[in-house]
């Protein structure tokens, strides 16, 4: 019985990095922009965290630098896709390739160096008293609580505010939004940049908490799994929470099963999250085959006003 809280706790800590990335992706896609640069942006976030923290030993400065660097990548993507109307798929791929190369280049000096970080943990004595739940939630670090809060905040933002209404309108029907006096470009720029920053935080969390030393390509596909999770979560931040933890659980499942000495080579256990992503997407595709799609209607389409039909 005591294994269940352990698995859930592992799922939460494994899923938090994914959660930040999915939330960032949702912000991008809700505004109508696909951001396939997630993997590259996460890597830049991770490598900048390593470099800056080793230099400064200051969590706030580190986070600030990560936000600036990944926000800048978001700005590049936004500029290419919104202002220059480039193909969003190719632009995102370029960010991922560039981010992968750049992070490896910058990270050479800190590769393998352990990062002496201690993230503040939240101790809740009253919670500890409750069985199981106490075991799961006691002593979680502050960023986990932050990510949970962020899911809820983004949910409220998207469904209970004027901005959220405008965001949905911009992603579904930019020309109408424009006609209603909403600046499509401003909304798209803002959400692409903010979303990219969240992807940067995903990288930050990955290296500061989950696996505290820089390894080239250390995200190992998490950025892409996050993109798949957007579909899984139906563009809803609350569903994203559960999706991320589910995949976080799968990710740590490999570890656990090794510990319990199942007779399966670890390589195959490590394949689980990747294979699961494909199978789950296939399942979703099959289940929704007769349903209208919930994805933002103008996802992937650049918008420009002076277009004559």
């Amino acid at each position: 019985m005591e294994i269940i809280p352990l698995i859930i706790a592992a799922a939460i800590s494994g899923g938090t990095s994914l959660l930040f990335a999915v939330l960032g992706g949702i912000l991008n896609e809700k505004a109508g922009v696909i951001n396939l640069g997630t993997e590259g942006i996460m890597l830049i976030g991770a490598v900048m965290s390593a470099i800056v923290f080793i230099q400064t030993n200051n969590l706030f400065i580190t986070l600030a630098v990560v936000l600036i660097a990944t926000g800048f990548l978001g700005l590049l993507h936004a500029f290419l896709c919104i202002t220059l109307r480039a193909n969003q798929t190719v632009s995102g791929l370029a960010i991922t390739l560039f981010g992968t190369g750049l992070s490896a280049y910058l990270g050479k000096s800190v590769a393998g160096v352990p990062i002496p970080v201690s993230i503040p943990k939240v101790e809740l004595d009253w919670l500890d008293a409750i069985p199981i739940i106490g075991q799961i939630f006691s002593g979680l670090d502050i960023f986990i609580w932050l990510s949970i809060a962020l899911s809820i905040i983004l949910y409220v933002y998207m469904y209970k505010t004027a901005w959220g209404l405008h965001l949905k309108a911009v992603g579904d029907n930019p020309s109408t939004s424009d006609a209603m006096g909403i600046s499509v470009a401003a909304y798209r720029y803002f959400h692409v940049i903010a979303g990219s920053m969240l992807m940067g935080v995903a990288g930050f969390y990955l290296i500061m908490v989950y696996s505290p030393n820089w390894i080239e390509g250390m995200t190992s596909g998490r950025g892409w799994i996050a993109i798949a999770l957007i579909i899984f979560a139906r563009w809803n931040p609350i569903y994203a929470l559960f999706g991320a933890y589910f995949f976080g659980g799968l990710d740590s499942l490999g570890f656990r099963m090794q510990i319990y000495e199942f007779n399966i080579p670890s390589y195959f256990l490590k394949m689980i999250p990747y294979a699961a992503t494909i199978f789950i997407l296939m399942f979703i595709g099959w289940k929704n085959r007769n349903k209208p799609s919930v994805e933002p209607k103008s996802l992937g389409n650049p918008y420009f006003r002076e277009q004559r039909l």
Partner: protein
Amino acid sequence: MSQSANVIEMKDIVKTFGEVVASNHVNFEVKKGEIHALLGENGAGKSTIMSMLSGIYRADSGDIYINGKLSRIRSPKESMELGIGMVHQNFRLVDTLTAVENIILGEKSNKWRGSSWMKKKIEEIEELADKYGLTFPTKVPIWQLSVGEQQRVEIVKTLYRGAEIIIFDEPTSVLTPGEVEQLFLTMQELKRNGKTMIITTHKLKEVMTIADQISVMRKGTMIAQMSKEEATIQSLANLMVGQNMADEGFSIKVIEKGKPILDVQNLVVRTKLRINAIDRINFSVHEYEIVGVAGVAGNGQKELAEVLTGLMQLYSGQIVFNNEKLTAPSVQQLIDKGIAHIPENRMKSGLAGSLGIIDNLMMKTYRSNARAKFGLMKKKENMEWAANLIKKFDVRTPDMVSPVAQLSGGNQQKLLFAREIDINPKLMIAVHPTQGLDVGAAKAVHEMLVQLRDSGSGVLLISEDLEEVMQLSDKILVLYNGKINGVIDRGQANREVIGQLMAGLNYKEGAFYEPEIVV
């Protein structure tokens, strides 16, 4: 109510799109409190002028005065602030939002949208709508509303924003005759409340019904302005299309129909969402016959065309083509059997805009041995063949390789017809074949369809343009909610009856019958 002041004055407006001059030194004035009709055929530049008032386009040169003040309308927002609201032809509504959300869209006040705030807004909007007798469901997504309801949402949206000047862009093109009547009543009500209205249209009868003042545009130029009392339908027609064209009525001789080419029995077509888009219909198309399909958009026309061209599979019932029962035919098989298809949207589904003339012409015939041998395309033969076709169908193009997206709409449609007629079709399925074409090009399309009929093909003409359907068809089917709500023969067609059938009224007398429904 002051009747003299010009609320809108546009002076010397020029706007070009690439090579096309959409607005050529246009002057336009509207007085307070009037219903002003801006008349012109498709492509005359009406929408362009109106889009400048609503801030969607900006003029290359010229001045706009609103309420006597020189105004720069640089965005839809600025237009709204000047009290101008526009009811677009293609509604500017976000499908996935509710009516109320659409109406308050863009409102910047009060960022927090809790349920009590929303409730207040819903009440406020319902009250406003009631004042003008406009009713629509406020809490379901727009895509579940009928076209007429959506238009009412658009009108309330402009009123909610405090519009004093309301522009209606081709408001009747998507409505049933009954809905048109209701719209006109609403407009009268708005007029009583002191609103100024501009309505753009190419329908002369509507102009004579609703307008106080009339302006006529042709090919980007303002031809005339007059009051309704000075105008007659004939004079307006002459002004709108030019003297010569208007006089030439379209005549079609009645000929004997041949043997049945297409016979549809108890056909059911089910969409992905498991709705019966076509619900147990029976009809046939004969050789030497044009069968028109009338109906408001979304009543099964699209699915009917798709099932007959193999793009969708039938759910039950049967289709007999040329004495052969078709069960699950592929698109390719149907092409080979001689079914030609002019799809609804030329550039979206008919042509490949980035490819040249030859590639576009070969789409239906590239499998034949005339076009290719041993899997290799015959370059020289294909070039000659294409050159002949575009000569025969008078497609005006600079060369054979430049992307067809650059051709005019009329030339694109001719290209499409050239390709489809070249397969010597036994049956032609033409969907909205004149949409967006000017009068000259539309006439050419009509002639091609009639010629095709006279040479022995059957034609199934699916169109929202009632005028066109009534003019060309030997028999008219009215689709409503996936069912045939009436069949009318040539000569017995009249707008009112068809309108009622389109609106779903079971009109049981007259020259048509209820289709037998076999369960």
